[in-house]
C-alpha cells in the first residue's frame, strides 16, 4: 500500500501563503495572550486551592455557591468536571494572602464544611466510607474482625483484612460507582465479603452522598518556581538542541529548527489563550512533548537536505529543499498521521485529567509537522539564497 509516489510539489513556491497563515495565527495568539484573555494558569502555577468533588446525584451548583458565599469564599469558581453523568464539580479558590500552614488548609476546610452543611454530616463517631482509604477500611475491619481471622494471629488477620479492604475499595472506585457507594449491601458482589463484613462496615461507617476525590493546595512559591522552571528549562533544552544541530549540520539549521519549534509553542499557547483553556502541569508536559516531536520532524527533513546537498553539485537550493521535502513526504504524512491518531485517541477517551494534555498534542502534532516544511525549511533556503548572491554555495557538514 502506498499513498504518494514521488510527489512534485513546489513547496517553496507556496510558502508565503503558509508563512502568512503562521504569522496571522501567531499574532492572534500573542495578542490574545498579551491584551485579550491572557493565559489562564492552572492551580499548579497560580497557587491556590482546588477541590474536586463527586456527587451521587446531579449537584446543585447554586446551592453549593450559596453555601460557599456564606463561608466567606466569594471568589470561588465552580465548574462541572467531566461529562454531566459523572456529577462531578471542581471548586477553585484563589490563593489566600497568607501562606502559613493553617491558612493553606483553610480553603479546603471551608469547602468541606460547606458541603457537609449542605448534604448533612454523618452520624457521630462514624467514618465516611466513600472518603475512606484502604488503610482506614483495613483498620476498622481488623478491629471488628467479622471473619474471626484474629484467631490466626494479628499478622495473618491484618493480611486477610488488608486484601479484603483493597478489594472492597477497588469495587467502590470502579465504575459505575466511581468512588460513591450507594448501599453497603452492594458489597456482597465482592468476593470474600460476608454478611458479617457488611454489617461490620455499616457499624463503623456511613455513606455520604459526595466524595472529595482530589485536593490540591499550592503555595505561591511552588507555583512561581514551577512556572519559572518550566520556561528556563525548556529554553535550556532548545539551546542544547541548537548546539547539537550546529555540530551535526550548520548553525543556520539549528537556528531554523529552534525558530520553528518556538513558533509551534507560541501558536499552541495562543490556542489555549483563545479557547480559555487552563495551562496545567500536564499541559507543560505536553508542550515538552510537542517540542520533542517538532524537533524530530524538522531534523528528518534537514537530514534529507544534507544528504542531497552532498549528492548534488552546485544545486539550486530552493529546488533541492522542495525535492527533499517531497522525498520525505510519504514518511511525514505517515508518522504525523499515526501520531495524530494516537493523541486523538487520548483526546477522545483519555478522560478529564489528561484532556488539556491531549488537546495540546492534537494541536501540536499538526503545527509541528507543518512548521518543518513552511518555517524551518524556508529559513534555511532564505539564508543560502542570500549566500548564493554573494557567490557562495551552501555548505553542510558530512553526516
Amino acid at each position, binding site marked *: *500500500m502506498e499513498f504518494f509516489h514521488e510527489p512534485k510539489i513546489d513547496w517553496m513556491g507556496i510558502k508565503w501563503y503558509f508563512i502568512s497563515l503562521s504569522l496571522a495565527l501567531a499574532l492572534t495568539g500573542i495578542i490574545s495572550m498579551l491584551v485579550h484573555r491572557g493565559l489562564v494558569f492552572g492551580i499548579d502555577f497560580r497557587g491556590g486551592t482546588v477541590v*474536586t468533588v*463527586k456527587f451521587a446525584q446531579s449537584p446543585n451548583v447554586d446551592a453549593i455557591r450559596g453555601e460557599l458565599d456564606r463561608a466567606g469564599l466569594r471568589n470561588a469558581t465552580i465548574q462541572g468536571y467531566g461529562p454531566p453523568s459523572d456529577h462531578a464539580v471542581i471548586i477553585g479558590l484563589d490563593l489566600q494572602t497568607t501562606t*502559613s*500552614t493553617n491558612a493553606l488548609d483553610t480553603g479546603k476546610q471551608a469547602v468541606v464544611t460547606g458541603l457537609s452543611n449542605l448534604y448533612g454530616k454523618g452520624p457521630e463517631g462514624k467514618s465516611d466510607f466513600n472518603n475512606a*482509604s*484502604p*488503610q482506614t477500611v483495613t483498620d476498622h475491619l481488623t478491629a471488628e474482625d467479622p471473619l474471626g481471622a484474629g484467631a490466626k494471629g494479628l499478622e495473618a488477620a491484618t493480611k486477610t483484612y488488608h486484601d479484603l479492604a483493597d478489594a472492597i475499595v*477497588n469495587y467502590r*472506585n*470502579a*465504575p459505575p460507582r466511581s*468512588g460513591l457507594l450507594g448501599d453497603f449491601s452492594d458489597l456482597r458482589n465482592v468476593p470474600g465479603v460476608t454478611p458479617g463484613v457488611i454489617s461490620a462496615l455499616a457499624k463503623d461507617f456511613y455513606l455520604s452522598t459526595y*466524595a472529595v*476525590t*482530589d*485536593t*490540591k*493546595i499550592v*503555595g505561591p*512559591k*511552588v507555583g512561581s*518556581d514551577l512556572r519559572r522552571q518550566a520556561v528556563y*528549562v525548556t529554553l*535550556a*533544552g532548545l539551546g*542544547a538542541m541548537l548546539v547539537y*544541530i550546529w555540530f*551535526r549540520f550548520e548553525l543556520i539549521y539549528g537556528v531554523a529548527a529552534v525558530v520553528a519549534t518556538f513558533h509551534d509553542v507560541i501558536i499552541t499557547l495562543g490556542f489555549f489563550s483563545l479557547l480559555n483553556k487552563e495551562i496545567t*502541569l500536564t499541559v*507543560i*508536559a505536553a508542550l*515538552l*512533548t510537542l517540542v*520533542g*516531536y517538532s*524537533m*524530530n520532524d524538522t*531534523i*528528518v527533513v534537514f*537530514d534529507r537536505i544534507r*544528504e542531497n546537498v552532498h549528492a548534488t553539485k552546485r544545486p539550486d537550493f530552493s529546488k533541492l529543499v522542495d525535492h527533499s521535502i517531497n*522525498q*520525505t513526504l510519504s*514518511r511525514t504524512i*505517515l*508518522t504525523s498521521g*499515526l*501520531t495524530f*491518531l*494516537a*493523541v486523538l*485517541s*487520548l483526546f477522545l*477517551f*483519555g*478522560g478529564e*485529567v*489528561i484532556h488539556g*494534555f491531549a488537546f495540546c498534542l492534537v494541536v501540536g502534532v499538526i503545527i509541528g509537522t507543518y512548521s518543518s516544511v513552511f518555517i524551518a525549511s524556508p529559513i534555511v533556503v532564505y539564508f543560502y539564497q542570500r549566500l548564493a548572491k554573494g557567490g557562495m554555495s551552501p555548505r553542510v557538514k558530512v553526516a
Partner: protein
Amino acid sequence: METKIRSRVILILVVIVACILGIIGFPRNVQELKDNLHNRIHLGLDLKGGTDQILQVQVEDAVNITSGEALERLKDELKAKTLPYADIQSADDKTETPPIHRILIKGIPQDRIPDLQTIVTNQYSDWDLVRVPGDETARMLVLKTSAAATIRNQALMQAMETIRRRIDALGVAEPTIAEYGQEGDFELVVQLPGVDDPTRVRDIMQSTALLEFKLVQDGPYSSREAALAQHGGVLPPDTELVPGSESGNEVWYVLNRVAAITGRDLTGAEPSHDSSGRPNVDFTLNRDGAERFGRVTGANIGKLLAVVLDNRIFTAPVIHGQITDRGVIEGGNFTPQSANDLALVLRSGALPASIKTLSDETVGPSLGADSIRHGVLASIVGLVAVMGFMLVYYRGAGVNADVALALNLLILVAAMGYIGATLTLPGIAGVILTVGMGVDSNVLIFERIREELRLGKAVGAAVAAGFEQAFRTIIDTHVTTVVSAAILFAFGTGPIKGFAVTLTIGLLANLFTSVFVSRVIFDYGLTHREKGAALSI
C-alpha cells in the same frame, strides 16, 4: 550469516526474558504475580492516590539558635575571664540572603582586646573577629559563611531524618521523603501513598516539637499589653513573654528566657494516663538533664513551671517537689490521640527548624483509578490503531514495526522497574513521544527500503541500504531529543524530571528495537525466503 543471526536472536531473547522477569519475577501463583507487578511498577501518586506535600525547612531557625547559644556562652566566658565590656548583643545582617550572623561587643579596653582574640581563636573557631569601622573599642564576631552553610545543610538533613522517623512511627507504607528544588531552597517533598487524613499527618510531621521547661516569673495575663503594662512597658532582663491558652482563653506568662531543660535532654516519652484515667505523657531525662532539672525544681518548689512546646505554653503547673530523671506532662487538653502524637514527636526528636508547607496535593484513590482506567483505555485504542495501520500499510514489514514497538514498551516498563523510577502523568507524556518516535523510526526505515527497491536494488541490498541511510536520521533525531531530555533531567524537578526519565529510557530502547531488532527480523526473513520472492513491505 546464519550464526551471526542466531547469536543476535539469542541476545534479543535474553533481553526479552530479562525484561519479563524484571516485571513479573518468578511468580508461583496468580497472587504472587499480582504482588510482583504491584511491587515493581511504581505508579506516581497522581495515578494511584495519596498525598504529596512540598515542605520548606526554615533552616535559618537553626542558625539563629546556634548564634543565640554562642552569644550566651560568650557572655559567661567574658564574665569568667573578667573581661569588661560596655555592651554585647546580636547584630545580624538580615538584608543579605542568606543572612549574616554577627555578635557586636562594645567598650572593650584596648589592652584586653588580645584576650578577646584568644578566646575567639580557641573556642569560637566558626567565627571571625573583625574590627568595627569608626569604633576602636568595639569588635564584631561574624559567623563564617562556610559554618553557617554547614548548619543549614545539617538542619535540612536532620529535618528529613526526623520527618522520616515520625512517618515510620505512624506506619505509612512506602513513604518517599526526598530533597526537592534547587540547592539553597531547602525544600523537601514528602509523598505518602493512600493517606486519607493529610491534615493529621502534616501536624505530626511539622510539629517542631521544640520542648522547653521554663520557670514562670509572673502571670498569667490576659494579653501581651496587660503583661507589659505590669512591668512599665519593659520586661525584666533575661525574660520573655510567651502565650498559651487556659480553658479556651489566650493567656500570657513572663518566663525565664533560658530553659531549665529542653527536649534534647529527653531519653524517652510514652503516652500514659493518671489515676483518674486522664491521658498524659511520661518522660525520662538523661543524667545531665536530670541533674539540672533536679536543681531547678528543688530550688523553686511552689512556683510555676511552664511546659513550652513550639513557643507556646502547653501547660504551667505548680512544682510540687524536686523532679529528677522521670516526670509527667499533664493538663492541657490531652485526648488519647493527642497524647500519643505528642509522645511520638517527642520521641522522634525535635525538628532543628520549623517547617513551612509550600504545596499539598491529595489525590483520592477513585480519581487515581479513574485516570488510570481512562489512560489505559485511550493508550490501548491508540496503540491498536497505530499497530493495525502499520500491518495494513507495510504488510510483512508491519510485523517488524509492531514487534519493535511492543518490545520497546516492554523494555521501558522493565527498566523503570529495575531503576525504581515512578510512572506519573508527565511520565506518560514521555512514553507517548517515545511511541511517536518509535513509529517514526520504522516508517523512516521502511520508506527508505522502498526507495532503494524502486531504484532497482536487490532485496538484500535494499534492506541494508535502507537501514544504513535511515540510521543517520534516526541517530540525529534521537540524540537531539535525549540531549534536551538530559537538560530537563538535570535542571527540572518532580514532574519535568519524570517526563525526561521515561523519554530517555524509551528512546534508548527504541534505538535497540527499531534498528537492531527490526533488522534481525528482516535478515532472518531474507535467509529463509525463496529465491527471487518479493519483500513484503
